[in-house]
């Protein structure tokens, strides 16, 4: 399997602080990898190491098959990036900012600038100075620069920052289409969990510099799965009644959880069984565990 990003025991130490601690990442080509973490968890430091902006204290980084052995040298013609907050030359227009990026990427055809302006719906701002843009449009400009040279790999740090709800949907669609139709690998960090949840085909959670969990598509699907929460006064009788009706209830603390598709679609059937069995429900609700809960459980438990 070819990996777009591969790190082995990647570490970065700043004085006494171990910002990144032995991180092993494997990002397959064509996948959207969500990189989650609290503020200060080590997301941006990892991204800077992936882009050769900082020298790792230990371990190695391979991007698109090329080992980064020296700062500044890498397969950058094939990589687009957006690191932390976007930046641009405020005195230059949107078009001029992108033209600077085009030339520094060695692209001869000036039409790519117009194409990416249109792709990021910046047409009406093309001749406006970057310093006068709203934060959302400034973010779009940053994304436009990352996409300008049609990269194979996109490394995006908090790409949803500053975007309004319509912008979020638009960028989400764009990233999905880039991955699905053009085979672009997307590595994106975020602390906006719902955004990552909607986009990522795989994700890693970093906490205190350590990659504490990776979730593949199946595990993510499981996390996104719905369940029925049942609360009754007599938990044991209700549990036995549901079992004898052919269901597979799970006891969890003070409630019963049920995950069968039929149960999710017809919770009224469960209510009827419980009432008929003499254990009427005091609470019956279809719930979906989300990434946020999972994330909080993971990161909240680790000090």
């Amino acid at each position: 399997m070819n990996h777009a990003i591969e790190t082995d025991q990647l570490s970065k130490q700043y004085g006494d602080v171990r910002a990144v601690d032995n991180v092993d990442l494997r990002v397959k080509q064509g996948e959207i990898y969500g990189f989650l973490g609290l503020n200060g968890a080590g997301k941006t430091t990892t991204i800077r190491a992936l882009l050769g902006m900082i020298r790792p204290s230990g371990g190695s980084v391979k991007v698109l098959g090329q080992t980064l052995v020296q700062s500044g040298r890498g397969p950058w013609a094939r990589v687009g990036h957006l690191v932390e907050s976007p930046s641009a030359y405020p005195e230059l227009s949107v078009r001029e900012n992108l033209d600077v990026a085009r030339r520094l990427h060695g692209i001869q055809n000036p039409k790519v600038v117009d194409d990416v302006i249109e792709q990021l719906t910046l047409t009406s701002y093309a001749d406006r100075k970057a310093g006068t843009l709203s934060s959302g449009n400034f973010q779009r400009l940053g994304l436009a620069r990352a996409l300008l040279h049609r990269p194979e790999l996109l490394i995006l740090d908090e790409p949803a920052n500053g975007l309004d709800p319509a912008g979020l949907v638009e960028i989400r669609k764009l990233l999905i289409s880039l991955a699905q139709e053009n085979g672009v690998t997307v590595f994106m960090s975020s602390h906006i969990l719902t955004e990552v949840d909607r986009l990522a085909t795989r994700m890693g959670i970093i906490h205190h510099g350590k990659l504490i969990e990776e979730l593949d598509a199946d595990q993510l699907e499981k996390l996104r799965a719905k369940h029925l929460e049942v609360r009754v006064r007599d938990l044991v009788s209700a549990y036995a009644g549901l079992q004898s009706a052919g269901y597979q209830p799970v006891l969890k603390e003070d409630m019963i959880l049920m995950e069968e598709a039929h149960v999710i679609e017809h919770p009224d059937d469960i209510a009827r069984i419980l009432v008929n069995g003499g254990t009427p429900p005091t609470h019956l609700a279809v719930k979906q565990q989300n990434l946020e809960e999972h994330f909080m459980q993971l990161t909240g438990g680790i000090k």
Partner: protein
Amino acid sequence: MNNFTSALWSEALKMRRSKVPLFTAIGLSMVPLAGGLFMIILKDPEAARSMGLISTKAQIVAGTADWTAFFGLLTQAIAAGGLILFSIITIWVFGREFSDRTVKELLALPTSREIIVTAKFIVIVVWTFAMTAFIFGMGLVVGTLVVIPGWSEELLRTSFINILGAAALTLPLMSFVALLASMGRGYLPPFGWTFFTMALANIAAIMGWGDWFPWAVPSLFSGVAGPQSSQLELHSLIIVILTGIIGLAATFYWWRNADQTR
């Protein structure tokens, strides 16, 4: 267009769109204007006496009202004032990348960091020489309007060479300003450095070691300490060149190897 010309084009565009060239030009235009004022005062001793202090100052600075003194003033201003104004240009070219946080857009590119830094230095060289030529040209206009005596084509040629020489001796010192703007990631550290070196240059010149201190050499060359001081010896020239090379090498090394966290 190859990577180098692309980087040069980008740096030139940033410079053209900025207001800094205008501000530095306005700042430097004070030099020939002030020189012209001194010449007016010196041409008319009666008026000079009635003006009190300013005439004394004019006599101290310029001496006599002729083209030799006027060009000497311009050269001294480039040597002393150039250290500040050329520093402003250098600080802007390098420091703005950190202040505007655009430096991260220059690091992971097919165009190498060395090429980008080279383009920046070339823009600084062109910009500072353009400013020097601007001052000289404006000086010619002001001097003609004031009708200063003692004009000759030979004087014009030697004065132009002198003023370019003062700028050329100041330029290598800018490499350390670029280094400080990069290491300090912004504007303040290199400004501090500029004023620190100017103060040290004054002390070195007063103590008679100015010819061994690179930041004092341009002023000495301009004749600020008397006409005989403008005869620079080889060791002073070597020290300035070596300082420039060390600053350049350190700036390139820093851009290539330092952790970029902004």
